[in-house]
C-alpha cells in the first residue's frame, strides 16, 4: 500500500510543500522549534543559521512518518478517526519543507507518506460518485487504519519497556558452587570413522583416478611435520642432524624425501654460507 501512492503526485507534493507553514489556523497548532526570548518560534527564519544537527535532533525524536503524523494529530487533541486530512497534510508538509530547507537528508519514508497524504487530500476534493461502489471508499480509511495500527504497537512498545526486566528490576540469584567439576568428556573416535570420512572426501574430490599413490607418502608427510616442529623450536638445524642412523636406510630415505618435499612446498630454506661448509635448514620466513 505504500507503493501505490507514488510519483504521480509530484506536483501536488510540491504544491503542498510550498504552502506557508502558518496558515489561518490557531497558532497553538504549531510545534515551536525553539523558544527564543520567551517567544515560541515555529517558522525557521530564513536569515537565521541553525546548525543542521539541531533539527536532526528534533527529527530523531520521531520514529518515522507514522510517528510524526500521530504526533501532529495528538497535539491537536484530535481523535485519529476525526482527522482533518487537509490540515494534517499541510502541517506535515511544513516539516518536510523545513527538512529540505536545511538540506537535511530526508528519509524516503517521509516522502512516501507525503505523497500518500497529498493523494488523499486530492481525492477528498473530488466529488464522490456514490453510485460506484469501488470508488466511494473514503480515502482516509487506509490512513486511519494504518495510524491506529501503528499506535497500538507504539503503546505495546511502551508497555514492554515498563515490564520488569532481568538486570534492571529483577535479578537472577545465584550461589557459588564449591568443587565444580567441569570436565567435558571427549567423544570417543574410532579410526575407522576417520578413514571412512577420508574415503568420502577422496571420492568427492574425484582424486582416485588422477593420482599415483606412493606407499611412502604418509611416513614422508609425518616426517615433514616432525622437521617443521623441530624448526619451530630451534629455528635452525644442521642438515645432518635430521637423520637418525638408528632408523636405517629406510628412515634416511624418508627424511630425505621429507626435506625435498618441504623445499618443494617452500616451507623450508636450505642455507650454506660457504662452499663445502655445513648445510643448515631453516623455516622459511620473509
Amino acid at each position, binding site marked *: 500500500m505504500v507503493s501505490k501512492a507514488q510519483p504521480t503526485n509530484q506536483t501536488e507534493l510540491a504544491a503542498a510543500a510550498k504552502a506557508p507553514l502558518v496558515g489561518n489556523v490557531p497558532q497553538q497548532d504549531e510545534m515551536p522549534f525553539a523558544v527564543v526570548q520567551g517567544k515560541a518560534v515555529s517558522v525557521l527564519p530564513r536569515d537565521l543559521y541553525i546548525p543542521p544537527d539541531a533539527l536532526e535532533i528534533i527529527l530523531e525524536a520521531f520514529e518515522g512518518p*507514522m510517528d510524526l503524523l500521530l504526533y501532529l494529530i495528538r497535539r491537536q487533541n484530535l481523535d485519529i478517526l476525526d482527522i482533518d486530512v487537509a490540515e494534517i497534510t499541510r502541517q506535515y508538509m511544513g516539516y518536510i519543507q523545513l527538512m529540505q530547507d536545511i538540506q537535511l537528508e530526508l528519509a524516503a519514508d517521509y516522502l512516501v507518506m507525503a505523497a500518500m497524504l497529498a493523494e488523499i487530500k486530492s481525492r477528498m476534493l473530488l466529488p464522490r460518485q456514490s453510485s460506484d461502489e469501488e470508488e466511494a471508499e473514503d480515502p482516509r480509511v487506509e490512513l486511519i487504519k494504518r495510524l491506529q495500527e501503528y499506535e497500538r504497537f507504539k503503546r505495546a512498545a511502551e508497555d514492554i519497556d515498563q515490564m520488569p526486566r532481568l538486570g534492571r528490576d529483577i535479578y537472577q540469584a545465584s550461589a*557459588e558452587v564449591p568443587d565444580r567439576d567441569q570436565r567435558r568428556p571427549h567423544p570417543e573416535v574410532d579410526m575407522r570413522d576417520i578413514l571412512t570420512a577420508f574415503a568420502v572426501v577422496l571420492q568427492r574430490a574425484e582424486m582416485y583416478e588422477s593420482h599415483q599413490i606412493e606407499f611412502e607418502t604418509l611416513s614422508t608427510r609425518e616426517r615433514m611435520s616432525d622437521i617443521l616442529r623441530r624448526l619451530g623450536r630451534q629455528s635452525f638445524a644442521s642438515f645432518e642432524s635430521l637423520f637418525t642412523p638408528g632408523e636405517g636406510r629406510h628412515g634416511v630415505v624418508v627424511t630425505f624425501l621429507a626435506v625435498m618435499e618441504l623445499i618443494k612446498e617452500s616451507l623450508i630454506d636450505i642455507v650454506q654460507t660457504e662452499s663445502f661448509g655445513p648445510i643448515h635448514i631453516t623455516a622459511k620466513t620473509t
Partner: protein
Amino acid sequence: MNAELIKKIVEGALLAAGRPLDISQLEKLFADDERPPRDQLRAAIEDIQADCRGRGYDVVQVASGFRFQVSDELAPWINRLWEEKPKRYSRAMLETLALIVYRQPLTRGDIELVRGVAVSSDIIRALQEREWIAVVGHRDVPGRPALYATTKLFLNYFNLKSLQQLPALGEIKDFAELDPELELALARSAAAPSADSQNPQLPLEAAEAPTTVTAKPSTGISDE
C-alpha cells in the same frame, strides 16, 4: 531419598545453575535408582517457595523453568552494585520487538509496513544477538524473507512464563458513530481481503499465520 534432601538438592541446583531449570533438568540431577517422582520435585519447589515468603528473593517460574530471583522491590538498592545503569532500549528497537512479540512469526517487511519506516539491520541483529528473537522459517514468497519469532530467552528476560502473560494489544477503535460514510467505507474494505491487520486480538496462536511457512519448526527457540 528423603524429602529434606531432595529439597536441599533442588534448592542448591537452582542457586548453582545461574539459569532457569525445568523439571526434567531437575530430574537429571538424580541417579536412576534415587530419582524422585516429578510430583515430589514440584512439592519440593513449593516447599522452597514457602520458605522464601517474606524474604528478599523467591523461586519463580519463567519460560524455561524455575529460578531463584531477587525481588524487584529491592532493585533501588541492588542496582547500586553496578556502576553502569541498565541499558535503555531505543524506541525503534522496542517498537520492532513489540511487533515481533504480537505478530509473530513475521518478516522485516511486515514490521516496516506497520512502522512506516525501514527497519535497520542493526536492530534485527541486536535482537538476535540478545537471543530475544530467532528466525523460525522463511515466507514462501520471492526472496524468501526470514520469519522472526521471540525465544524462550526473551520470556525469561521479561520474567514471563508464556506470551499469554503479556498485556493485551490496544483495541482498534470503533469509528462507527463518528462518520457513517466512513463506516460504510470501512465495512466494505473489511469485507475485501486485505493483507494485514484485521485481527484486533492477540494473534499469539498462529492465528494469522500469513503464508506458507517452510519447515524448520521452533529450532533456536529453546535456550539450551
